[in-house]
Structures are given as C-alpha cells and as structure tokens.
C-alpha cells in the first residue's frame, strides 16, 4: 500500500488519496480516488454568484472592479483568518474588533511620537499581547471563551476610549502619507498593499494550519481536548498561541483600516467580528471545533463581499442589501448541507 498524497489537516479535497491496507489476500476494494464534491458546495454557490454577476453586469469582470473587490475584502478577510484559526481550536474570539481598535489607536499614537515603522511594530505587538491575555484568561479562569472574550472586548473598547479621550486621532500631517501606505496601489496591477497583506496573512495561516506540527495540535485541541492532552500536547500553550495569532491578525486589520481612513477611533469596526465569524462558518468550518480550513474562511469572505459588490454594480437600492445578504448566505449554506448529507 502507499500513502503517497497528503492527507494532512486540510489539503483541500482534491489531493486526498486513499491509503488502503490491502489486508489479507483475496483482495479488498482497491485504493480508490473519489472526488469529494460535497466539500465544494459552498464554492459552487460562490461560483454561481460570480457567473450571475458577470452575465448581468458589464463591469464585474473588469480589473478595476476586481481590484476594488479584493481591497474591500481585506479587513474582513484578515479578521476571518483570525476567526477561523480560533474556531478550529474549539474557541471563539469576540474581542477581535476591540483589539483592532486598540491596535489602530496605538499605531496612530506611536506614529505621532516615533514615526510610522515604530507605530506599525507597536500595533502588532499590542495585538499579540492582548490576544495572549485573552488566551491566558481563557486557559486559567476556564470560563468559556465566548463569555471571556465578550467581557474582555468591552474592556478593550473602554481602553480605546481612554487612550483617545473619546475623540478621533490622526497621525501628524507630515507622516500621514507614509501612514496611509497600506492603502496605496502597488505595481502588481494596481492591487492595494492591504490586499497583498491580506493574501500573505491568509497564506501564512493556511500553511501554519495544514503543514506544521502546530497546526496539527490546533486541530487536535479543537477536536478532542482530552485526547490531545493525553497525546502529550500542552493544551494551554496551544490555546494562548492561537489567541495571540488572532490578536496579530486583528492588529493588521486595524492597520489597514486606519491607513484607509488616515485616522483611528474607539468605535472602529464595531460588530464586524460577527461578520468575520459568519464568513468562517459559512465556508464550512465547524463551530464545534477541530474541523475546517483557511480556504473555507476565504470563500466565506468572498461570498459576503461579492454580495455588497453586486448591489453596487447592479445599482440596487442598498436598503435591501442586508435582507438579500442574509438570504444568500442561508441559501449557500443550505446547498452545502445538502451536498454533504449525500455522503452519509
């Protein structure tokens, strides 16, 4: 028998081969590849929307619009990476947008005193720190992460208000341009630096989850904490690391948002954590933990961003956007369910 192809945590359904133990002579069913169509339900849903938009509008498939689409996806996308990693580890992080706000504010404040590079480093450090605090509290106090991070997010928002005295903060005029560098188009066909950052972070998270021992541990802790512990995995450290990663992603999202607006304030991105969690889950990552993949989060982000984009292009009244958005998400997820149910 062979175990050639990778059956790692989430290689994507296409590369799964079937290592079969032939067992005794007489022969069992031979090793067999079969495509796991059911894994792709949500992808088909998104593809259907893409086709529909391409056919009904002349503008959807233009470079300008696609660049724009990617840029719009960057902030939710970074947050969805955070949400996906945390959910796979069997937890929730409701504090990501509060961490985003604090980090963005810290970026502005430090930029004012010490320049843009220092501001960026400080923001990421604060994101990692707050994330690690989340993790430590979840691990030591043993309250459910949903409640712990909800309470912590209120505290972080409060911290943001204290830091800004409730006002909007701006970097100094002479540093504004550098501060906004993330929102500039790059030489790569005009794609913004934020979009590239988002794609890079997604790639890193993808590799981390699917190719590293750390990723395996994250799946193990989320899938069966007791089994993970008995396998010698230090569950607490894994959890703290996962929350720290979530904090870093949130801080990067904060940098993108602050760069885009050239400012930061305490109420930034309020409520967007739910969109991010929705994106992760819509893509097919199980809320129960232990299953899922970054690409699923990305598909979810795409779905959600496409709907907003479609409304713009079609010139529909945005009054209806939320209703349609909710309905389409429901439809896509149902389709996904139907395909998966085929299997068992």
């Amino acid at each position: 028998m062979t175990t050639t192809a990778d059956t790692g945590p989430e290689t994507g359904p296409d590369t799964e081969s079937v290592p079969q133990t032939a067992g005794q002579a007489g022969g069992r069913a031979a090793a067999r590849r079969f495509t796991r169509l059911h894994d792709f339900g949500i992808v088909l849903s998104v593809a259907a929307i893409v086709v529909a938009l391409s056919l009904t509008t002349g503008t959807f498939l233009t470079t300008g619009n696609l660049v724009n689409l990617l840029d719009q996806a960057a902030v939710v996308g970074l947050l969805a990476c955070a949400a996906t990693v945390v959910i796979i580890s069997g937890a929730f992080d409701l504090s990501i947008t509060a961490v985003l706000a604090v980090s963005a504010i810290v970026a502005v404040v430090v930029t004012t005193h010490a320049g843009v590079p220092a501001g960026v480093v400080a923001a990421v450090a604060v994101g990692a720190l707050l994330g690690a605090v989340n993790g430590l509290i979840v691990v030591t106090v043993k309250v459910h992460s949903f409640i712990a991070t909800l309470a912590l997010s209120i505290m972080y928002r409060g911290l943001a208000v204290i830091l800004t005295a409730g006002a909007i903060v701006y970097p100094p005029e002479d540093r504004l341009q550098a501060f906004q560098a993330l929102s500039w188009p790059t030489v790569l066909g005009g794609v913004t630096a934020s979009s590239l950052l988002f794609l890079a972070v997604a790639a890193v998270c993808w590799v981390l989850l699917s190719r590293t021992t750390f990723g395996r541990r994250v799946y193990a802790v989320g899938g069966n904490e007791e089994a993970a512990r008995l396998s010698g995995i230090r569950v607490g450290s894994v959890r703290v690391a996962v929350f720290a990663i979530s904090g870093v992603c949130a801080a990067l999202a904060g940098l993108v948002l602050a760069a885009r607006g050239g400012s930061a304030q305490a109420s930034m991105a309020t409520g967007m954590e739910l969109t991010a969690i929705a994106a992760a889950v819509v893509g097919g990552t199980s809320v129960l933990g232990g299953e899922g993949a970054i690409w699923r989060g990305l598909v979810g982000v795409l779905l959600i961003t496409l709907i907003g984009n479609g409304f713009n292009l079609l010139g529909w009244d945005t009054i209806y956007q939320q209703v349609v958005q909710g309905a389409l998400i429901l439809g896509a997820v149902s389709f996904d369910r139907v395909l998966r149910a085929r299997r068992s």
Partner: protein
Amino acid sequence: MSQPVRIDLEGFGKAYGGVPVLRDVSFTLHGGRVHGLLGENGAGKSTLLKAVCGAVAPDTGRILLDGRPIPVGSPRDALRHGFALISQELALVPAMTVLDNVYLGRWRHRFGWRSRRGDAAAFDRLVERTGFDIDPSALVGELPLAARQQVEILRALASGASVIGMDEPTALLTKTETDRLLAVVRDLAAAGAAVVLISHFLEEVLSICDDVTVLRDGRHVMTGPASEQTPGSLVRHMVGRPLDLLYPEPVPVPATAPVLLRARDLRRGDAVRGVSLDVRAGEIVGVAGLVGSGRSETLRALFGADPRDGGTVEVEGEEVPPGSPSRAMRAGLAMVPESRKDQGLLLGRSVRENVALAGLGGRQLAGFVRSRAEGEAAGAMLRDLDVRGSDLGGPVWTLSGGNQQKVLFGKWLMDRPRVLLVDEPTRGVDVAAKSQIHRLLVDLAADGMGVLVVSSEVEEVLGLSHRVLVMRHGRMVAEFARGEATRERVLALAFADDAPPDDGPAPGGPPAPHPQDTTIPDTPTPDTVTPDTAAPGIATSAEERP
C-alpha cells in the same frame, strides 16, 4: 399470544464513496428468537443493523414485516414500526439526567406539561425488570461507560420496541452485568421481540442466540441455528479459513533484565491507595480486577493523565514528574486509554493524522510536518496492524469500531515507547485482530519493551502476562507468576469482599468467592487453545470476564 412477527430482510446493499460495504444481504428474523450477527471488524455488521433500524439509509434493501413491505432508512418510520437500535458508539445527551435520556422525545405529559412522575414510575418498572442499578436523576455525562450503556438499553426497552438491534452491548460490561443483560435479552425474546445481537464473544453468542448470521466483506455467508455451530466453525465462516487462535507464548524475561518502570506507594483519591509495582524490560505485567477496582486510575496516575496525591514513578531510574502526560512521554511512557472516543481519537480527522498525533515532535523540520516520513511511518503502522476501511484517507469515525481500536493502538506504537501502558487492549476487536494484537504485544516485549496491561478479560491477562497482579479497592492484593495464576484464584481475589477500604491493609485476606460467580466452570487455564476444542480461548472469552 399472537403469532410471532417475521421480518424478512431482502437485498441490503450499501456503498461508501464507491466502496461497497454491504452487498445483497438477505436473511430472516423471527419474533421470540435471539439472532446473533457475526463477522470480522469492518465486515458490515453495524452498517447492516443501522440500515435495518433506520439510522442510515441503505442503497438497496427491503424489509418485509409479516410479509408487508415497510419504509426503510428513516429513524421515525423505524421507530413507528417498533425497531430500536442500541448503537456501538453510545448516543446519549450527556447534560441530561438518566430519566430524561431514557424517555428522550417521548416524555409523558398532561395537558402539555411534562409528567416527570409518570416517567419515574415507568422507569422504576424498567429497572425492576432489568436489575440495572441506576440513579434516574444522575447526569448521564457523569456516569461510567458501563452505566451509560445500560441507559441506552433502558431507552430501547422504554420505546416498547419489538425488533431490537444491539451492537456489541456487552463489550463494556462486567461479567455480572453481562449475565444480567443476557437474561434481559432472553426475557425480551420470550415476550415476543426479535433481538439482533452483535458480539465478538463467540461463547456468548452460542449460549444465548437461537440463530446466527455471519457476514464477511459485506456479504452474507451463512444463517442457521446456533446449535449447529461451534466457535471454530463460526471463526471459519467469519475469516474464510481455519484460524489458529493460540495465545503466543511470551519470551522469558532474562534474570538480568533491568527494571524499566518502578512505582512506589502511588495514591490518587479513593481509587488508588498505595500501589507499588515494577515492570522489567521485556516483561508483560497484567493487572486483573473488577471495574472500579482502580486499574485504569492506576495507569492514568502512572502516565500523569490525572494528578497524583502521593508516591513516586520512575522510568529507568529517572523520576517522572506527576500530572503531565507530555513529560511522561518524554520519559518513555505511553498509554493506550480505555475509551477511544473520549480519550483517544480525533474522530473527525484522518487516520493518518490520528496515528501521527502522539509523535508529532519526532517528524518535523523547523515546525513543519515531514509529510513523507509521516506517511511512510503511518502506512507501515496501519499495515502492521492490518487496519481496514473503505476510505483510510477519510475521517476516523467512518472506520468500524474494531479498526478504530487498532488506529488507537497504532498511535502509541509509532514512537516505540520504553514502557507501554495499555487499558483494555482488544475492546471491540474481532477474533483475528485480537490475536494479532496479542502477537504484537508479545513481540514488543521480546524487543525489550516493558508492557503493563489492564484487561477486563481475565483470560487475556492470564494468557499474555509474565506476571499477574490482582487489584481490589485501589490496592494490589496479590501477585502470581505465569502458570501459578488460574482464573478461579484471580476472580476469587478480585471479588473478595474485604472490609470497608480504610481499614488497614487487606492483601491476602481469605478469598471469598462472589455469590454470582460460584458457578465458574472448572476448566484449566490453557495457554494454547484452538477454537475447535471450544475451550475458553481468546475467541470465546465472554464468560471469563469477571
């Protein structure tokens, strides 16, 4: 009494991902009779039973109930026609009480209000009928495995089913509990129900069943009266050839073999009260005792799965710090836990990922999984253990129960521990796989590993071990060298009712046989037995379990 029901199963077929696991299986069940369903791990027994009881939809297949076809493949329809399933992987709501679980979805009510009292009264009648000793207000999640199994059984009885499928119901029960359950099964049949019983204990099947059906590779091999079968003939039908079911003789431990594992005065709550033991290189030490005697807790304390209240553990002279499985593993310990579902496997992840989990650190490069090395190591392990499934790249939950057990075993053997602690090595595995696992343990010991085995099957402990320890109420009460131990002596010591636990050391107290076990047949303890002799070999060890 009306005519007993007749259930014709016709042409059951099912494939997963293109791989057939059931092929055109047909046979007939009769009310008032107990029907045994046998086959190797992965033969399709559970799948067939689930299909008949509506838990999975078969691709093909008809059920004729007294000649009339009934809908197949939906749990509701199945329940309505009196089919109930007690599944292999228990399906209870852990956060609810026993009472709520037993009447789940069928709670009695008056004017829309739940009538707890009505349920409680009915529950009392059920308990009286079965002799199970369960507190109806206990939370199911806090019950030991055996009790949860009983709750499932009560639930099926409560639904008033006339066709009852039981998937390895006795795998988790003690000897006394098993006897009680089998009596209940006979009662049910006597009351007109058709009972289908899956079990790997051939003696049990032969003693209780009226008819047997054997499946192999998803195909129907035979159906006939149990009285015409012997354990040997059943094994031949299951495996397709006669099988040598000898216990492999362990290689003698050289007198110079160093002590690998040394525990002194180990304590953990009420469960472990001062246990001391040594395991030498190349030695297999077996621990016998009743469920609840502290055997599993001793293993868990040794491995650091639970904190210790006192005592020391050393591996090769190095102290193992308490309460940390990862440190214990670094010291060279490994533990195959008792429950594969709760403590062992990531059911949603692939076989390979599960097998690789405990030794992740050993196959990495700068934090990256060395995919090829892992694939090769996992592949070799799965081949050694002969793990079979329709799709080994898929999640572990799609494997049959016995194959899951082999995956669990493989996970802990991947990185060659110095000392292997095993809790119930062969729970749910078939006769052939069982002797493979025994062979494996003996070979590992021959290679110099120290092995500490806990098993509820006394036969297994006796057949495998160089030395047998007997545990009772959290203490080691006796030690036998290979050959000295007999089933009777071990059981007598395990059951002996010593005074309440805190009253000083009890070892060696006069063995008083447990009332329920005074009828132990007076067979010798053969180290080697072939199934055709129908003596208690590994295939036939149902009644040897205490």
